């Protein structure tokens, strides 16, 4: 529900008309912070994305220019990676939603008579955060590796071909993304479902709706703000993630996502304009998708 705090309308109506110096003063640190750490880097990123290489210069030497072709080159070279990123992120978001909704429903609705169980389960959802993201992903890598118990058992049972792998495949990357972002889906869903008025569910049953119909006609629409928050909190970071898809973790050479491409352009090949333009493209695409998504799901209040 991180977005609900920005609910529009009421705040505008209630704002005092008189311009208050104190309010400006209180806003100042925030404004300065945003200028320094958001606006300046953003402008610098846009400028970098338009740079041109210095003629006869070293690798990684660029000068200010307006080379918009950088974007065309980025899209034509890395179009496949961009599509793959959004495909993986979409799949991970869907799996996380399918996994989190029943979990959040159980904690937030079914477990209401047992507050202790509710708290315990919430702790279990949050507990993985106490361990580093990298460490957890590495742990999965060794669990899912060819020498690991799981894969070797499956191979022994002939459920997997002897020369097949799990790590390094797209499935492993989607699995990793799903696993890592499940708490971001579960928590907003829980926050929403915890306030679900079960009397409305009862009313659905009273009005001849089967439990499944009541779920899709009443419960799901009522929990839409939670679903939207969870989907955004999962999809946005998952689309830009470069840990899971990295060959050092769960990915392989054929699973590179846009994050990995940006990383290698920035840090390996020193092609700063390409990396910057990819970053801008990623941001723009996410922004457009989020706006369309929020409009379509009828929760404009979140914007």
């Amino acid at each position, binding site marked *: 529900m991180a977005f609900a705090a920005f609910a529009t309308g009421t705040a505008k109506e209630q704002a005092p008309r008189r311009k208050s110096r104190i309010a400006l003063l209180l806003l100042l640190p925030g404004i300065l912070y945003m200028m320094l750490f958001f606006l300046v880097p953003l402008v610098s990123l846009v400028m970098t994305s338009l740079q041109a290489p210095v003629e006869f210069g070293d690798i990684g030497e660029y000068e200010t220019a307006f080379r918009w072709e950088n974007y065309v080159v980025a899209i034509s070279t890395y179009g496949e990676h961009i599509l793959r990123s959004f495909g993986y992120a979409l799949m991970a978001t869907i799996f996380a939603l399918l996994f989190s909704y029943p979990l959040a429903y159980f904690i937030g609705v079914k477990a209401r008579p047992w507050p202790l169980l509710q708290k315990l389960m919430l702790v279990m959802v949050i507990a993985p955060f106490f361990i580093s993201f990298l460490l957890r992903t590495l742990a999965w890598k060794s669990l899912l590796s060819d020498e690991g118990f799981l894969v070797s058992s499956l191979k022994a049972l002939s459920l997997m071909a002897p020369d097949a792998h799990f790590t390094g495949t797209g499935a492993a990357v989607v699995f990793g993304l799903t696993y890592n972002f499940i708490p971001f889906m579960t928590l907003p869903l829980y926050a929403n479902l915890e306030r679900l008025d079960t*009397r*409305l569910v*009862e*009313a659905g*049953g*009273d009005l001849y709706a089967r439990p499944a119909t*009541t779920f899709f006609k*009443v419960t799901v629409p009522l929990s839409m703000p939670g679903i939207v928050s969870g989907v955004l909190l999962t999809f946005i970071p998952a689309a830009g993630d470069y840990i899971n898809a990295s060959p050092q973790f769960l990915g392989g050479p054929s699973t590179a996502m846009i994050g990995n491409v940006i990383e290698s352009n920035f840090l390996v090949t020193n092609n700063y304009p390409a990396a910057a333009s990819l970053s801008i493209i990623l941001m723009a695409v996410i922004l457009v998708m989020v706006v369309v998504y929020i409009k379509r799901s009828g929760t404009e209040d979140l914007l």
Partner: protein
Amino acid sequence: MATGSFATSGADLELVGIQKRFPGFTAIEHLDLVIPAGSFFALLGPSGCGKTTTLRLVAGLEDPTRGSILIGGEDVTHRKPFQRPVNTVFQSYALFPHMTVLENVAFGLRRRKMAKPLELAQEALELVELEHLASRKPTQLSGGQQQRVALARAVVNRPALLLLDEPLGALDLKLRRQMQLELKSIQEEVGLTFLHVTHDQEEAMTMADTVAVMNKGRIEQLGAPEDLYELPHTAFVANFLGQSNLFTGPVLEATSHAIAVEVAGTRVLVPKARARKHSGEVTVGIRPEKLRLLTEAPPTTAGVNTLGPGTVTDVSFSGVSTQYQVDVPGADSVTVFAQNLDFGPVVTPGTEVWVSWKVDHGFGLEDSASEEAKFAPELDTATIAVQAKRDLAAELEVS
């Protein structure tokens, strides 16, 4: 549940040996009840008496610990709510906030695959005079309007049995009267069976054909409103349904048609047919409006009981009538309602008076007024109203 068609008539509701226990307390001890098809039945009782639980059992929202529920002769005890030919007007309205008013009303019709659900829903909204708000969301309506939408949403399905959980609580007096008439006419027109749960004795008495007074998970008495009022069987009913003056004393003598009870040193006669107990300690009662206030000791007349002398302690004028509190030594405080036929109050506090009533108006209870104290007397209607007023006053003071 049949789809595509309405119930053509109301159905009998039968509760057989119902018991409902929740962890820690028993909501309903033992309930046997038959509500004939087409009747308007009210369950009346203080909060916590088990009336809402009864309603939820019938709707299928709770399972009985023991006993069975039959609707139209069919055992529905183990059916899910959506399979029962029942609709409920919830106390909390339970309107779907994400749907328009019209879609709320059409919800049940759509589930039953009725033809033209939106037109039927629109008609139902016209019935509750809200057709102009059809496209609003429920949160944009006032409490009273929401309640009428809830009513329309249930009535539109023409259920064989309509359950009403304090349905008119949030309406103002005028609208309430109007809705009472509306409900009554819908009920008579279609012949549906209505089960109405309320703590408002006036609402129960004006609307229902049959009233059951519930207390502590049991039905204390059941009957037509007039009968319940004229001849209550227990102290709880005598005090919950209207007011009563109750006197307890030993039976001095019993003749073939009356018993004599000693109250404050006086013989008080009660017709035998109107008394539940004929020996030992008996509590007799008389309604305040049946009492006459006399400023002189009346001559002893056959067929009239007299108590007194007592002292008037309080006089309150309420327009139509005046209420007197008379302190009769040995018989507690006696309440007298006198209609202001000619003019207002005739006596002032401190005056010595006598009260008298026709023997035929008295009634004898099966339990005693002192036992009545155990029935959580703080929960009678008058006290609930006083408490609500106090709460409101406190709230206003705070803000």
